[in-house]
């Protein structure tokens, strides 16, 4: 009986656990009188959500990769490259829909290249994607001619507008896109054979192979899908900036990875969830937003976010230990 209870409690902790961190962060700022009123407003929440879109899309793909036991350091460069390609296409007169497609596919191609290198050459993902990080960033600068690419405004730029055109959308279309894809990926991970195989590959690759799972195919797919998400994220970045900027998002890969890990992903593979990741993204965004609102200097912000990453993971760790 008591065991039953305990497992019920731990299950509850497991479901609500990830939210605790988020609630704590929001509560923290909501309690500071100085910013209270401003912080808790709908407009601010919307703006935080919009700021989160780019990291969130990258993190969706990164979750798949991390669950499969990999890592992708090229995500941020890939985002920059896709944003440049989209701007280039719009600028060259392509229809916005085509430009969007090009951007997304560019991301997908980079991801595919990552996957192919990881599986064909049997290299550790850390190295492959670290190399790809330089390659994609260099390519972005090359294509953009070391400059921002100015592009005429199109409906692509509406995707990240805080006050969306059909006003019944309430939030930027980008946010809805994230919600949609997050739901889709959560279902993919939990309820499909492919999702199961991703977990298996991350948990024990040798076993997965011996059980007849085509581990290489799983990995290539995971990297390719993740690349597509980076591409979409790049399109959103372009939408937000209205220019294609090859220097954008430097170092963002660490934010993306941090979001996944704060959300319970394990860099050893086999663990992670979309819900957790999304909460991780929001935690980071709210922290940045709150710190700026408080007018704290940037270095304080850097220190706090560094500390929070450690604390969040430590709490997650404790939670897991209790459980077993």
């Amino acid at each position: 009986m008591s065991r039953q209870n305990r497992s019920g409690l731990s299950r509850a902790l497991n479901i609500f656990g990830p939210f605790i961190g988020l609630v704590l962060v929001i509560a923290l700022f909501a309690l500071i009188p100085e910013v209270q009123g401003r912080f808790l407003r709908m407009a601010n929440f919307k703006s935080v959500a919009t700021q989160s879109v780019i990291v969130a899309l990258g993190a969706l793909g990164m979750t798949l990769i991390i669950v499969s036991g990999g890592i992708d350091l090229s995500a941020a460069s890939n985002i920059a490259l896709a944003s440049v390609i989209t701007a280039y296409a719009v600028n060259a007169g392509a229809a916005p829909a085509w430009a969007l497609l090009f951007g997304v596919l560019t991301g997908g191609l980079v991801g595919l290249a990552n996957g192919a290198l990881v599986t064909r050459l049997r290299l550790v993902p850390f190295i492959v994607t670290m190399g790809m990080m330089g390659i994609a960033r260099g390519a972005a600068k090359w294509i953009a001619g070391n400059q921002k690419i100015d592009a005429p405004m199109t409906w692509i730029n509406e995707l990240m507008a805080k006050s969306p055109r059909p006003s019944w959308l309430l939030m930027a279309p980008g946010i809805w896109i994230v919600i949609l894809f997050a739901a889709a990926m959560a279902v993919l991970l939990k309820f499909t054979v492919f999702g199961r195989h991703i977990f298996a590959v991350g948990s024990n690759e040798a076993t997965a192979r011996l059980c007849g799972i085509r581990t290489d195919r799983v990995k290539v797919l995971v990297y390719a899908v993740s690349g597509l998400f980076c591409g979409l994220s790049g399109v959103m970045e372009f939408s937000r900036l209205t220019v294609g900027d090859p220097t954008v998002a430097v170092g963002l890969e660490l934010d993306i990875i941090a979001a996944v890990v704060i959300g319970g992903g394990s860099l050893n593979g086999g663990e992670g969830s979309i819900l957790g990741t999304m909460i991780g993204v929001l935690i980071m965004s709210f922290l940045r937003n709150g710190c700026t609102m408080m007018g704290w200097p940037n270095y304080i912000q850097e220190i706090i976010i560094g500390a929070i990453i450690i604390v969040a993971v430590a709490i997650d760790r404790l939670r897991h230990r209790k459980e077993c």
Partner: protein
Amino acid sequence: AKEPSGPSATAGAKTLQIAVIPKGTTHEFWKSIHAGAVRAGRELGVDIIWKGPQKEDDRAQQITVVEDFISRGVDGIVLAPLDDRALMRPVRDAAREKIPVVVIDSGLQGGDYVSYVATDNYKGGVLAARRLGELLGGRGRIFLIRYQEGSASTVQREAGFADTVAKEFPGLEILVKDQYAGATTETAYQLAENLISRFPDVQGVFTPNESSTFGTLRALQESGLAGKIVFVGFDSSPKLVQGLRDGAIQGLVIQNPARMGYLGVKTVVAHLKGEPVEKVVDTGVVLATRDNMDAPDIKGLLSPDLSNIAD
């Protein structure tokens, strides 16, 4: 990239190789300097090698670049030092190897260089403060959004701005003054957005360089404040010029980077030919507004012709 050399290449004599080393390679500002340098190179018939630090704004990497060019044995160097002290030693090494150095854009301590060709950055900040103060009638709540920790030229602009506000417009209240926009447009965008969430009643903003100006412009546009508050920025790009025309930006302090690059190369070549050169050359700053933006000289500065750089 190496430029095709001018008429003297066919003359058979060894063409001079001039290394031009910016602080970074991806801002439009540096593109203009590049364009100016290339124009001077064409006119004088010298090779221009354009090469910035591998990582934007990294002092250590810029030292490496200077050292590598000394190793390569170029004839002269035009350098925009990322640090007024850190670059002293490599510049001295160059002098020892008889490679003259002309410093552009930001200052350098010591006397091992031939000439200093630059904008008066402090004055740029002063111009911006006056514009903002006048438009607000000397009263109001404003942001000073800084660029990045440790960047000397923008620090001077920020100082010029802050000092002038303190001295001439005591009625202006600077709400925020130690927030840094960071290296990219996106980081500036987020910062400005968050600041606006916190202080929606802000009346004026100053930003000290192109990326912070553009990021802030995007944030103002998105929150519907563009044109409603007084916004003075620094440097130009097509989107900023558009903003100026639309009334979203009330003033852009612009420098003359092309001239900086042009004069930098001219000066170093003159020195190599044994001609006397000025120790300090000011390339000037002006304030572009909606009213004067179509005047030919301002227009040329706002939308520089970059067509001659071929990469």
